[in-house]
């Protein structure tokens, strides 16, 4: 069983290799479209930025969607009352 660290190192290594090969390719092939060169050169920076954006958005959405179970709370409070009454009758409380 590979550890989680090994799994991550593999992924980063593959991405790094891809990036380096793209950089090398840029030296050989003349890309006519402007912007592509810039994008490939700074791809890791964009990657990290997108990752951060995903993290921030996920947490924000998660917090906004976090259920406040007020109905469940009400239901539970009712049941607590019922339980107290029953347990008092049985002389447990």
């Amino acid at each position, binding site marked *: 069983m590979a550890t989680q660290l090994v799994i991550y190192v593999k992924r980063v290594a593959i991405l790094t290799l891809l990036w380096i090969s793209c950089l090398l390719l840029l030296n050989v092939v003349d890309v006519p479209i402007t912007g592509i060169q810039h994008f490939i050169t700074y791809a890791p920076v964009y990657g990290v930025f997108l990752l951060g954006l995903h*993290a921030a958005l996920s*947490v924000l*959405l998660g917090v906004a969607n*976090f259920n406040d179970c007020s109905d*469940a*709370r009400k239901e539970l409070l009712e049941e607590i009352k019922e339980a107290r009454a029953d347990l008092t009758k049985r002389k447990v409380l």
Partner: protein
Amino acid sequence: STVLTVIYRNPLPITVMTKYSILLPTYNESENLPIVVWLLEKYLRDVEYELIIIDDASPDGTQDVAKALQKEYGASKILLKPRAGKLGLGTAYIHGLQFATGEVPSVNDEQLVFVSFVILMDADLSHHPKFIPTMIGLQQEYNYDIVTGTRYVGDGGVSGWDLRRKVISKGANYLAQFLLEPGVSDLTGSFRLYKKAVLAELISECISKGYVFQMEMMFRASKKGYTVGEVAPSSRTPMIGLASLLIWLLLGPHTASEGGNPQRGLERYRPRVPGHFHARQIDRRTLGGP
């Protein structure tokens, strides 16, 4: 040497005997403990279960309350296994597990198969016993090794948390999901049902003893390829997950699924057990074994 494989034909029908041991660590829960016991008795009337109360020498008289409850409900139903001091959650489960009476899987002469389960829950009423029948139903339907409750799917959630606590909870969960990839939506939740043998194996390998313990247990289970099911209250108001939001933005509202994010390869189903819950199936076997 030769390996012999013997195939038995069963002349008698096999009866499966299940037993559920609930481990309940307590510290200063004299108020909540009787309510928990009462609710368990209300919702688990048809279930063969025992409750093991592990009290860490609470100064508020939790143990006296526990004794009174034991007297009322019987010593075979409520087991008191206190400890001398506040020794932590992880070790409380290890301590309690030794006293779980359910037998490990075996077939005896009368064709009875014994299967035992252990349920971990908190005594502070954050885990409602009404979900246990749903957990049991889901386990039986798919023969899961573990069934876990979740706060992050459907109507699962919290009550009375402020914004800061929600942000910390979600942030920590995001980080854990990203780094550990457990395939389970609520890593730190502590409302879980385990096959007894699986719990014993995982617990013996766990290093952490405190709050992280639940996370480590689920991570190890997931990496070992144990099957995990999730149970959450059903959703009446659809949740907007990040994935479904993106799909919704790209393809229009008709693709947004009712009640949660459309997870890859995850089936949804409603258990046969009556109640207002849905459950989510995450079959680790399809994702590759250990």
